[in-house]
């Protein structure tokens, strides 16, 4: 089982959601986050005081899935989020040791989908 964490542009969220749904991987948690990669940030100025390279708004998507869903999920995220420009974001794939469904107490693969 893997935990896929993707950081994407806020404006691509609808496309990514649609692509994930098309790939039958529509379960996700979405959080607005701040961050900065190679795109750098934009310098903000408040009454002359500069805040250089401030953080930009991004969207974080977290998806837990079984191993055979990892590649389709990654492909769907790329399909929805890629514009080809700097700042499109990153995808991190982490090992996931267990999943528990709170309602039933199920563990592992039964709980993931």
């Amino acid at each position, binding site marked *: 089982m893997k935990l896929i964490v993707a950081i994407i542009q806020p404006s691509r969220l609808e496309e990514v959601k649609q692509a994930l749904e098309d790939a039958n991987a529509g379960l996700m948690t979405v959080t607005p986050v701040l961050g900065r990669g190679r795109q750098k940030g*934009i310098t903000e100025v408040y009454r002359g005081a500069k805040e250089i390279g401030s953080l930009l708004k991004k969207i974080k998507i977290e998806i837990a899935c079984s191993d055979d869903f990892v590649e389709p999920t990654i492909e769907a995220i790329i399909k929805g989020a890629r514009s080809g420009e700097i700042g499109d974001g990153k995808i991190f794939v982490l090992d996931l040791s267990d999943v528990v469904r709170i309602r039933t107490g199920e563990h592992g693969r039964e709980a993931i989908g």
Partner: protein
Amino acid sequence: MNSGDTAWVLISSALVLIMTPGLAFFYGGMARKKNVLSLLMQCFFIMCLIGVQWVVYGYSLAFGPDVGGIIGSLDWAFLHNVGLKPFDGYSKTIPHLAFMVFQSMFAVITPALIIGAFAERIKFSAFVVFTLLWATLVYDPIAHWVWGNGGWLKDLGALDFAGGIVVHVSSGISALVMCLLIGKRIGYEKTAFAPHNLPFTVLGGALLWFGWFGFNAGSALAADGIAANAFVTTNTATAAAGFSWALLEWIKDGAPTVLGVVSGAVAGLVAITPACGYVSPTSAIIIGIVAGVICCLAVTVLKQRLGYDDSLDVFGVHCVGGTWGTLATGLFAQKVINEGGADGLFFGNPQLLLNQGIYFISCIAYAAAMAWVLFKLVDVLIGVRVEKKDELIGLDLTQHNEAAYTVLE
């Protein structure tokens, strides 16, 4: 000179001033988080830009000594000859300066209304140049035709108490032209652009309602019975329109919405503007109910059918509402209410409705054509629309280097 009249007009000027920041919150709440400051900025900046333009030459172009019925001369530039004594041609009981400053607030809010149409995608520099040109070449001439001594529409016999055409139709049609030319926002129709802060919109709508008493009742230019009538009809029509819009939504979509009731109230304010000093409170109820219904349909049905992206519905509320109000004045006006007015169609005088029509068509055609020309001009000079990257990040950061809300702390 009358101290009561002078006090009322000065207070009314302050009331109309607060409408522009009110409008900023009304619009800002409907925008997305990343663009709220750009709308507040555009409204506030117009107060600064036109506040100076009006004194330097705007007032003279609109109200100065007539040149051929088309425009005022520059004789009153820098308020030369505009002083502490009344100018009998406009108002016998208040200082000429008080009349000038009251009119300046109208000159400020009119271009501010347009910004709702190109919201979330205009370059700030282009907005500044367009606004200055529009105020100079559209607002000032139309104000002169209708309100300036010698203006060619003033003697036509059309009635426009507080600026249904001069303010709302001229800005509303320009807004439609602008949003058609600038194009849709990225993602429009694919994504729902939910208003980011409806409480702001309610606050803004409430400030507009409050300030509009100055706009309409102040336009009597006296603290008299006509001002009181305008005050009452304004409140009544606004209430009726907010009510009818919400009711229509309730029937159509299953729930009355906050955005709906506030939008309805603004539609009612717009519609009663040309009529408020000439119609009875009973007529105001009818004008308001109809305004709420047709503006709601314009925004929810017409816009979808035609597919234009008028971001914050300037056309649907101001042009449609202002048009209805102008024609309604031709139907419901009564000489019993205001001796200086005329009887409308329902009181035995079809001529007034005809005059209203001529008045409406000449102004709307001029404003639409000029908005088109000015857009093309500014687009060639500096480009009107921001780059795609900037539009996605938002205008607050890319045009003003600021963010409205911090996310951390």
